[in-house]
């Protein structure tokens, strides 16, 4: 067996999910799991890049930039509908298998820095320090500046865009964070929308709950139970709700009984019930990450009524997105990630090209605009 064949048994696929295209992502994830492949954690980790859904112009440029950062050999494809996902993976892997092109773009990052385009967001996904400030240091990248951290101590701060291609992250979301060490001291929120204007298709509430559980458990370090939750989601989507109950009950048991899990999550990412009520958000979002996880796994997956996160007035997603800068400020990076992973996975689903963000969201920092 040659190297390519052996390597092809376990490719890492970076999934670029467009807002509202969660079903495409789900189809892609089960198609790649069937092949024994895994979801990549960063561009450097990826062999293939799969675009799920139809990205708008901004997201397209981010995806293009990210593709340039993938190590060779690489492949890419786009899946517009869930039915396309498996074919798209086949197309991408054909490129990956093909003759390795000369490594002309190894230094593409330097080239990009030279063109001096401050609107370039190639690095969004992997946290490269691609920011726009007056001072520039070696290689054209800005130097860290100083500011007070949450304890009032002078500290170097970095302006780091988080998203949109992070694992377990709402589709299309970009948080332009000001980081003091690993504490987020300020943030702007932006959603890179899908192309065109379409009402998102309603999602299976059971699958949505399983997705949220998957994301939380993966970030919390229980990859085994995250895999169970993902298996449950796949079965629910395939219509086998009773079969999904087996892996789902393992998830439920671990979440309810594991004391280390409770110990490591308790008190993190707390959302004040008063704030939740004031902004007419779903009641299930109140509390800390552990309480939300308990809420997510509270019911069987076959409930007709969506038990979690509970009923809310329309438009709650954009209200919640508008609150994010306040919610993440002062929290540590790991906590911000858990907070966002524990929100409903379709948080950005209604963001389309015509959606404007709430006025509360600060202007973009990366755009230099």
């Amino acid at each position: 067996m040659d190297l390519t064949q052996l390597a092809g048994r376990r490719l890492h696929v970076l999934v670029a999910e467009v807002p509202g295209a969660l079903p495409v992502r789900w189809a892609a994830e089960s198609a790649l799991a069937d092949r024994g492949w895994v979801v990549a954690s960063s561009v450097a980790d990826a062999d293939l890049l799969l675009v799920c859904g139809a990205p708008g112009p901004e997201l397209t440029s981010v995806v293009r930039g990210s593709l340039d950062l993938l190590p060779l050999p690489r492949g890419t494809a786009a899946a517009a509908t869930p039915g396309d996902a498996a074919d798209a993976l086949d197309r991408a892997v054909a490129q990956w298998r093909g003759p390795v092109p000369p490594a002309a773009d190894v230094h593409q990052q330097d080239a990009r820095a030279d063109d001096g385009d401050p609107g370039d967001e190639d690095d969004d996904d992997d946290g490269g320090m691609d920011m726009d400030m007056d001072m520039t240091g070696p290689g054209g990248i800005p130097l860290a500046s100083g500011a007070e951290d949450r304890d009032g101590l002078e500290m170097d701060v970095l302006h780091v865009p988080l998203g949109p291609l992070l694992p377990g992250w709402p589709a299309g979301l970009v948080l332009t964070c000001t980081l003091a060490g690993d504490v987020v001291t300020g943030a702007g929120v932006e959603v890179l929308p899908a192309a065109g204007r379409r009402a998102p298709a309603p999602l299976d509430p059971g699958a949505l709950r399983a997705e949220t559980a998957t994301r939380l458990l993966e970030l919390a370090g229980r990859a085994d139970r995250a895999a169970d939750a993902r298996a449950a989601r796949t079965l629910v989507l395939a219509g086998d709700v009773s079969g999904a109950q087996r892996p789902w009950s393992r998830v439920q048991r671990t979440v309810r009984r594991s004391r280390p899990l409770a110990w490591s999550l308790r008190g993190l990412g707390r959302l004040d019930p008063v704030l939740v009520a004031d902004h007419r958000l779903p009641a299930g979002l109140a509390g800390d990450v552990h309480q939300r996880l308990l809420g997510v796994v509270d019911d069987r997956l076959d409930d007709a009524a969506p038990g979690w996160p509970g009923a809310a007035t329309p438009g709650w997603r954009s209200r919640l997105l508008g609150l994010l800068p306040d919610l993440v400020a002062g929290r540590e990076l790991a906590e911000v990630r858990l907070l966002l992973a524990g929100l409903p996975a379709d948080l950005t689903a209604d963001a389309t090209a015509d959606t404007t963000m709430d006025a509360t969201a600060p202007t973009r920092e990366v755009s230099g605009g």
Partner: protein
Amino acid sequence: MAEVGPVGLVWVPVLAVVLAALTAVTATVDGALTGRADRPWAELARLLRQQRRTTLAADTLLGRGAVVLAPVIALLMAAVVPLGSWTVSDLSVGVVWFNALDVVLWAVFWLAGWGTNSALSLVGGYRFLAQALAYELPLMFALTAPAIAAGSLRVGDVVSAQHGLWFVVWMPVAFGVFCLAVLGFTARGPFAAPAGRDLAGGLTAELSGVDRLLLSAGRWALLVAAAGFGVSLFLGGGAGPLLPGWAWVLVKTVVLAVALAAAGRRVPLLRAERFTEVAWLVLLPAVLVQLLVVAVVVVV
């Protein structure tokens, strides 16, 4: 049991082969336990075939140097582990040698996080240092217990001193702390946050190709080398029926390494600030009591 004798530094290449083979066996068994025995081999092929990536204004010397150091430190740790009656270098301060090397890992992981000039990798470095502060002191005292019982810092003497009764039997606390710390300095299981998925891979976020391979294989090799050291210190070294001493060391090492990796998967990520509290307020006093017990037993 036969006395442990050094065979000399010319055997280092042989030791490297043995360590690589044990690492391969351990990773394969671990892959089989998680569903796919060919997983590490497929990853190896994938990374060998993959282009090495550069980031803008990276500190190439320190960043790549750190990545290369990970497997080198594993080899240096293995150099003081007796394989039955042979050891590459039976240093008179073997226990301290191991301890010094695991402190060098602080620099390795910090520089790996620093070197690629990426905010998420840097945060991975911060996280490693934070949890290293928690596990390092309990680890130092845990390593002291077998040395006190044997009356020597020479690993060969510690193995010989376990004639009849393995130290794990009457030093369970020290052994437990040692195992936790091994997971800590290999950034694995509950201590995997420095390379966490929430940081898009943290320390490894910007690494591809041979760099990622060296760091990831290095972390496996460190787990195996530390397991081998743990076998010498707590699990009787080459003691066992039928098989020769060196075979017992190899078998026990793989079993301990696989067990540590498997146990790590059953525990969620521990937050550094919460674990530090436990490490300093519970583990440290517990391991000191363990030392007291050992000291009293030795004197009486």
